[in-house]
């Protein structure tokens, strides 16, 4: 980046907050406009303020459902990160294990999220356990695949350097392969974070209502049957916020780990 573009980018800082804000206002205006123009009934398209009212009216239920979805998705995601990283380390260290499992890791990544979610809910029923399981299953395979790819694409020269100094296998793994693989790992973790909330909610929507108390997806089904349409919008918004939180968390950790050295994080200074 040349100094001039860099200067321009810096002057843009105010605009970077102002413009999204204006876009938001514009979207809300558009929302009202469309509703009025096509004369849409509240059951089809509630107005923004009605969605806000729904937040207030359903706050207890929504909060409980949000906590359920959040803690479930978070636990599953955490498990996917820890076990996925561990599995990648094992697979890079033991090649027979890698030969045996690698095709299945790739294969499992191909499974459609909705199908995975549906199957899990059928087996485990609506509830925390299902949310955890879905978030885990959806996150685990991309994390293993991307971390393993990173661990295995260390440049030959770097490996030779370590070999020349008679490094021990653990030194090569933890001082060379692991740091090299971090950016790859975070790519996988970001995918896992995005899908964790989507997956859990999808699973519950698919399963439909049962007697138990479920997360946000479950509540969306309940609201639908109760014709509380603006509450569906409210729940959907919360899903977006949750997903956004998850991804932000990953991006923040990535920034912490890589800011000193990785090109993708070197912004204007």
């Amino acid at each position, binding site marked *: 980046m040349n100094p001039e573009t860099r200067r321009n980018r810096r002057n843009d800082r105010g605009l970077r907050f102002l413009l999204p804000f204006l876009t938001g206002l514009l979207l809300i205006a558009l929302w009202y406009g469309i509703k009025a123009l096509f004369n849409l009934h509240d059951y089809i398209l509630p107005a923004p303020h009605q969605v806000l009212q729904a937040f207030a009216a359903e706050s207890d239920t929504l909060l409980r459902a949000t906590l359920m979805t959040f803690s479930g998705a978070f636990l599953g995601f955490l498990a996917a990160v820890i076990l996925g990283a561990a599995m990648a380390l094992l697979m890079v260290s033991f090649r027979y294990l890698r030969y045996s499992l690698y095709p299945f890791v790739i294969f499992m990544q191909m499974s459609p999220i909705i199908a995975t979610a549906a199957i899990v809910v059928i087996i485990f029923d609506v509830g925390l356990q299902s949310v955890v399981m879905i978030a885990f299953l959806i996150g685990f395979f991309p994390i293993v695949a991307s971390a393993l790819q990173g661990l295995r694409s260390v440049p030959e020269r770097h490996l030779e350097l370590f*070999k*020349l100094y008679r490094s021990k296998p653990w030194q090569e793994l933890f001082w060379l392969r692991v740091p090299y693989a971090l950016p790859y790992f975070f790519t996988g973790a970001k995918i896992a974070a995005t899908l964790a909330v989507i997956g859990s909610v999808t699973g519950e929507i698919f399963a439909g209502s049962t007697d138990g108390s479920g997360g946000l997806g479950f509540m969306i089904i309940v609201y639908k049957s109760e014709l509380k349409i603006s509450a569906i919008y409210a729940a959907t918004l919360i899903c977006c916020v949750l997903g956004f939180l998850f991804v932000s968390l990953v991006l923040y950790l990535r920034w912490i780990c890589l800011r000193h050295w990785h090109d993708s994080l070197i912004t204007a200074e």
Partner: protein
Amino acid sequence: MYKPPPITQLSGVRKRFDRGPWVLDGIDLQVEPGELVSLIGPSGCGKSTLLRLIAGLTQATEGQIAFGASKPARPEMAFIFQDATLLPWLSVAANIATPLRLQGRSREECRGIAERLAELVHLESVLDFYPRQLSGGMQMRVSLARALSTSPQILLMDEPFGALDAISRNRLNEELLAIQARERWTGFFVTHSVNEAVFLSNRIFILSPLPSRITNEIRIDLPFPRTQQTRDSRAFQDYVVEANAALQTVLPK
């Protein structure tokens, strides 16, 4: 007068990769302790392969490589690659000390040695920088400092300054000789620049295209220390002409 045994001796070394063509086809050479020798030859003639054989990064198909009188063990060696090969997640100090850390030395000891070496290659002000914050020439200096960290007896350099501009290259050449005069390692230097080879070397070996052999050996009797004056001297120019002529005879028409 006592003559120490050659620190590196290659006899009848041949190398091919798997069932491929012969890359090195009978290399015999002896290098005395403290010598700096250059290898020049057309691209793809096996210069890097030869260095990697000496480093033990690949095995000779035939022939022997011996180090010192009777010691079976390899002497301490360091390798400088064409690109600096720094670890981007480590600071300059940590990069310099990587070989020492691999050998199990403590962090504090490493820091001390890194500081001393950084001074040697004029990097003391950027010890806590990361590689991406350095110019190409500075990165090469870090790579050089790292190679020197274990006090190697043999330093293998594969076109280390090939990517640098002429000014940085000349300066680094002079600094390299100054460091060598102090630390007395034995150097193998691969380059495509005849000027650089003449300036640095005690002897130049010229390799032919595949299957490669040493076709010429030119002894450079220019006095040390060598400086810009050396480059401007008549004797230097004569060596450059002689080496170029020898190189022309092996280049494919």
